[in-house]
């Protein structure tokens, strides 16, 4: 009963629904190149921001162990991000960000980006996921 009460909470529902979004949005691509069991947070500056369909990409100069490595990070579509509250100008070249990703399985510096946090610690482009009937 306790579990049911928690699941009935709108906040928890929205949170759980938001976890599903990246999966659904990339549904037409296989995810098998990404290790979804692994989540990594990269910190660095945006080198390139490709606001394009079918997927947006971020080139990130990430600081790792005192060195800078360029990561290629694939996201969902422009159309999906817009529906989540993103706009093209929410990210710019040179921005300091932290990005949560599922890394590539093959160990190369790439991954699927899930969440971007700005230098102020706030998540960029975050809105509540669409609720049916709303």
């Amino acid at each position: 009963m306790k579990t049911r009460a928690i699941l009935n909470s709108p906040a928890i529902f929205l949170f759980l629904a938001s976890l599903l979004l990246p999966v659904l949005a990339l549904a037409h691509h296989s995810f098998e190149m990404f290790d979804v069991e692994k989540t990594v947070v990269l910190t660095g500056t945006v080198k390139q921001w490709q606001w394009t369909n079918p997927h947006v990409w971020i080139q990130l100069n990430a600081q790792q162990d005192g060195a800078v490595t360029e990561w290629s990070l694939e996201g969902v579509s422009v159309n999906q991000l817009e529906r989540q509250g993103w706009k093209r100008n929410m990210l710019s070249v040179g921005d300091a960000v932290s990005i949560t990703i599922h890394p590539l399985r093959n160990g190369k510096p790439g991954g699927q980006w899930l969440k971007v946090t700005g230098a102020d610690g706030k998540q960029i482009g975050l809105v509540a996921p669409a609720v049916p009937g709303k």
Partner: protein
Amino acid sequence: MQGYANNAPHRTRDLALVCATLAIFCALPVTAQTSAAQTSAAQTSAAQTSAAQTSAAKAPSNSVDLSGTYKIQFQNAPGSRNLPAGQGGATARTRAYKVDGHAPPLLPWAQQLYEERIAATEKGEPFRHLMTKCLPQGMPLASMFAFYPVQLLQTAEQVTILFEEQNHFRIIRMNQQHPEDPDPSFFGDAVGKWENGTLVIDTIAIRDDTTLDFLGLPHSPELHVIERMRKVDENTLESHITLEDPKAFKEKWDAVAIWKRQPASDGIREYICENTRYFE
């Protein structure tokens, strides 16, 4: 922008002039015809009108207004339940689709090809289905699944389905026959008719590089898709899809897709597939 605003009345007037000129121009060849031809054309026209009226009288329209903006959800699709949860295969299949069903019974060549593609995906070399190359998913997937909204428009002569994803469209010609030997295409040749309020769409001539799922479930050039779409309620359409392919399936296969109406505020948008970057 200012220039456009100032020019607007002129452009409207110019457009009207062009339309009027075109109308006169189009009429000219008719008036230039011989009187014999005119008589013949008039007779043919009268015959056609009469036939159409008779036909209309015999078969009153039983169409239903299905128009609107929807998302298409699979109810029954090839998929993961064949493999235990937690295994790589199950993961791959589950992610490729919203899954709640079983794969069509495939002939050996198709089964082998499908298994090879799944094995490659599980090894981390995902099958490159058409959409990963900015090509259309085409049929039959277009009838089964749409994560992004689609808009259905209908007239007596044509049903048109506009897809937000990649801005594609399907044309269904109503009360027509398939051509003799249609060229294979991504969306195939589709004709439709109304049967007691159900829209029945018959599609053939689908390119054999389209697939039934994003893992590469194959079909042959003989794939024949029949969709029977009916309105369940104001916000729901149900589409029963039958796929027949004597060269790839052991028997025909049925799937169900549910079309859920989208809020008017979330209509279809521009979506041009321009970035073909892909992790190899």
